[in-house]
C-alpha cells in the first residue's frame, strides 16, 4: 500500500529566460504519495502554483517511461537523481523520505543553454548526429535483411550502445561537460555493425570533431556511466578514441589517393 511523504522542502532553480541570471526558490510540498513519480510530484507543485496565480516550473518531459530522453533534472547533485540507471521520469518518490530537502537544478553546460527554469536546449546532440551518426542507406536499395549474418554477440554489443536516449545526463554529470559517452555510444553502435563499416572512419572523424565544437573533454572520471539511465559503458569511449586515431590515418590515405 502506498504511504505518504510529508513536508518535503523543494529548492528549485527558477530562471525566466536564457539571459536571466536565475535563482533558487523554496517550496514546501505538504504531502505526496510515495507511489507518485518525481515528475508527478512536480505536476502537483505546478497545479498548486497555478492555483496561486503563479508561474509553474517549466521542465522538459514527455514519455514518462524512461525512453524518450526528454526529462533532464539535476536532483540533489545527481543527474536524474539518486536511483541508478533511471531517468528522472522513472524516479519515484519512494526513494525519498518525509522532511527531505530536494534541490533541483537544470543541466549545466555551455552547449545546453537554459531556455527557462529547468528546461535546456540540447540541440548540440542533434548536430553531432547530423555530422555522421547514421548509415547512408537510401530508401529502397537495401539488400535482404538476412544477407549479412551478424553474430549475436556483435548485435548485442551494438544494441547495448544504441540504447542511448539522448537525455544529456552524461554531459550534465561530467565534471568537464564532455559528451564523449553520447558520441561514443552512437559511434560504437554503428561502427560495430557490418553495415556501418563503409563509413566507419569518416563518421568517427566527423562526429568527434563536431562534438569538440560544443563540449568539454573527457578525463575519464566515469561519472557519465554512473549517471546514464541506460548504463552505457565507458568502453564505448575507448572504442571511439581508437577509431578516431585510426580515422586520422585512414582518412588521410583516402585523401592522398584522390
Amino acid at each position: 500500500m502506498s504511504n505518504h511523504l510529508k513536508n518535503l522542502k523543494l529548492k528549485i532553480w527558477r530562471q525566466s529566460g536564457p539571459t536571466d541570471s536565475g535563482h533558487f526558490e523554496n517550496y514546501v510540498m505538504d504531502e505526496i504519495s510515495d507511489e507518485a513519480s518525481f515528475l508527478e510530484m512536480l505536476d502537483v507543485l505546478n497545479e498548486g502554483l497555478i492555483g496561486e496565480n503563479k508561474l509553474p516550473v517549466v521542465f522538459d518531459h514527455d514519455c514518462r517511461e524512461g525512453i524518450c530522453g526528454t526529462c533532464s533534472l539535476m536532483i540533489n547533485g545527481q543527474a536524474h537523481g539518486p536511483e541508478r540507471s533511471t531517468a528522472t521520469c522513472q524516479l519515484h518518490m519512494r526513494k525519498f523520505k518525509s522532511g527531505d530537502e530536494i534541490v533541483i537544478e537544470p543541466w549545466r553546460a555551455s552547449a545546453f543553454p537554459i531556455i527557462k527554469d529547468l528546461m535546456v536546449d540540447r540541440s548540440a546532440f542533434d548536430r553531432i548526429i547530423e555530422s555522421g551518426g547514421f548509415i547512408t542507406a537510401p530508401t529502397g536499395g537495401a539488400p535482404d535483411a538476412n544477407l549479412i549474418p551478424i553474430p549475436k554477440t556483435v548485435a548485442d554489443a551494438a544494441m547495448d550502445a544504441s540504447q542511448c536516449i539522448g537525455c544529456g545526463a552524461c554531459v550534465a554529470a561530467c565534471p568537464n561537460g564532455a559528451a564523449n559517452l553520447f558520441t561514443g555510444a552512437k559511434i560504437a553502435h554503428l561502427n560495430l555493425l557490418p553495415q556501418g563499416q563503409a563509413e566507419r572512419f569518416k563518421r568517427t572523424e566527423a562526429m568527434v570533431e563536431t562534438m569538440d565544437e560544443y563540449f568539454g573533454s573527457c578525463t575519464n572520471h566515469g561519472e557519465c556511466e554512473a549517471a546514464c539511465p541506460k548504463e552505457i559503458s565507458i568502453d564505448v569511449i575507448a572504442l571511439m578514441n581508437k577509431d578516431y586515431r585510426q580515422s586520422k590515418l585512414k582518412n588521410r590515405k583516402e585523401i592522398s589517393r584522390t
Partner: protein
Amino acid sequence: MTITFNSKIPAGAIGDKWATYKEDAKLVAPGNKRKFKVIVVGTGLAGASAAATMAELGYQVDVFTFHDSPRRAHSIAAQGGINAAKNYQGDGDSVHRLFYDTIKGGDFRSRESNVHRLAEVSVNIIDQMVAQGVPFAREYGGLLDNRSFGGAQVSRTFYARGQTGQQLLLGAYQQLARQIGLGNVRMFNRTELVDVVTVDDRCAGIVTRDLVNGEVVSHAAHAVVMATGGYGNVFYLSTNAMACNVTAAWRAHRKGAAFANPCYTQIHPTCIPQSDPTQSKLTLMSESLRNDGRVWVPTNADESRSADQVPEAERDYILERLYPSYGNLAPRDVSSRAAKRAVDAGLGVGPLKNGVYLDFSDAVNRLGKDVVEERYGNLFQMYERIAGENPYDVPMRIYPATHYTMGGLWVDYELMTNIPGLYAAGEANFSDHGANRLGASALMQGLADGYFVLPYTIGNYLAPMLNKPIPGTDHPAFKEAELAAAARYQGYVDIKGSRSPDYFHREVGRIIWDYCGMERTQQGLEKALSELPALYEEFQKDLRVTGDAESMNQTLEKAGRVDDFFQLGMLMCRDALEREESCGGHFRAEYQTDEGEALRNDEDFAHVAAWEWTGDPTKSVRHSEELNFEAIHLATRSYK
C-alpha cells in the same frame, strides 16, 4: 467545401494493385524535385521516414516537431516489435497471411487495398532498417530472430530487446539527421502546428507557433504531410506521452479534412494499473510478455493470500480457458475485455483490486531465469521501478489502458485526405487497422507510410503542378489564419478563470473513459454528450493560464491541446453512438453475442464513418465510405 470520398483504389486483383499504381503514377524528374516544397509535421516513424526519403529524392522538405529534437517522438516508446511477412521462420507466413491477419484483427473494418499494400511493403521495411543499422535481435547463427504476437499464429515479429520502437525511430531519425546535415531538410524544433491553410480547396501550407517565443508564423508548400500521431491522450490517462495530442489533426479537420472512425480506440491489455490519484500516465508493458506470461485471477473474490500461495486449483487462467487456440496471445481487444470482466466481477488483484496477474513463474521454471531476463530484462526492470515489486518473484499486475487510436484523418489509397495536397501518415490516419490494431503493426504502418508509400503518391500529386505558382505566405488566407491562431492563444491567457488545463483534461478524460472506453452503451454515450458540452463551456469561461503567450509557456500549450480534446471527445462519443454494432476496439454492450463477444453488423456498418466539421462539435455530419471485401470473406472473428 463539399466532401467527396474517392478512395482511389487502383483496379486489378488485390495483389496487383500497388504494382499497378506505381506503374501508372506520374513522376517528377530528378532535376525538378527541388522545385517542390513539402512540409512534414511530426518526426515519429512516419514523419521522419517520409521526410528523409523525400529529401533524399530531392524535394525541399520542411519538418516540424514540438519536441526539442526529432528523436523524441512517441514511436520511441513502442516496445514489442514490428511485423513483417518475411517467413524467415518457415512457419507458413506470407504477404497474404499478414494481410489476412490484419484485416481479421481489425474486425473487417479496414480497407483491403491499403492493408494488402502494407503487408507487401512490410518485407522492405526490415531490409531497409537493417541496412540503416537497427540492431534487431539475432540468433546465434547471425540471422534475424522472431517472436510471435497477439492475433497471429506465426512468428513474424522482429524485435530489438524491448526497445524496438526506439531502435526503429533512431534509425529513421538518423536518416532525417543526415538530410538535415546535408541541407536538404530544414528542421523546426519546438514548433507546434496551430492551423492548416487551404486556398482554392487545396492545402496551401500551415501556421505554426514557436513554443519558445510564442511567435506565430506561416509556411507555404506544395504538399503537407501530417504525421502527428494519435489522440489517445483524450482519455487523460493513457500510455501516450504527455505531449501527444490531436491538435494538428484536429485543426486539419476543422479546415475540411474528414475525421474517420474516431470511436476506434485501442485499449492495450498489458499496462501497469493505476496506483495513485496524482498519476499522470499509464505505462505499457509490452504485449510480447504474453508470449511467456500467463494471465490469471483468483477464483475467489476475497482472496487475500499472496499470489504464490494461491494453489493452481484456485486460479483462473482466463485467456487460456476462454480462447484455447490463442490462449494468452488472444488479440488486444479480446484480452482487454476479459481482464475488465474479471475486475468488474470483483476478482481483481493488487491493493486497489484493479488488475490481473501476468505470471512468469512457469516461464522461469521452464526456461530459466537467464532466458527470461534475456527476453524481457528491461521490461521487468521498468516494472520494478514503477510498481516497486520484482516480477521474477511476484507476478506482475496488469490492466488495460488506452494505447492507440485506429481512427484518424480520412485518407484515400494515396494517403491523401479529402483536402488535395494534405496527407496523413502513421497513427494520424485511419487507414490500415480497421477497428483494432494487431500488436507490432503500428511500427510497420508508420514506416510503410513514410518510406514506401508517401514518396510515390506525393510525386503523383505534385507532377502536374510543375512550374505552376502556389499561394505564398502573403496570401490573405495565411494572414487570416495567423491572426486567428494568435488570438486563440491570447484568448486562453485572457480568460483568467480558476481552473488549470490539467483539471479540465482530467475531467474530459474521466468522462470519455467512463462512457466511451472499453465498453460503451447508448445511455452512457448520451450522458457523455450532455456532460461534455457543459464542461466545455466551463472550460471556455473558467480556464486559468498563468504567464503570457510570448514566451515558453507549457500551461498555454496544454490549454490549446485540451481545447481540441474537448471537441474531439464529443465527436468520438457521437461516432460511438451512431455505430450501432460492436467491432474491435469499439464494444457496445447492446451488441454482443451470448458469450459476450463483439457482435458486428455488417449489413449496416461495413463502412468507414467519415465526419465533416460544421463549426459545432456536436453537430458534425457523418459520411460513409463503403468497405468492399473482395479478397477476404467477411467472417465472424473467432480466437477460440
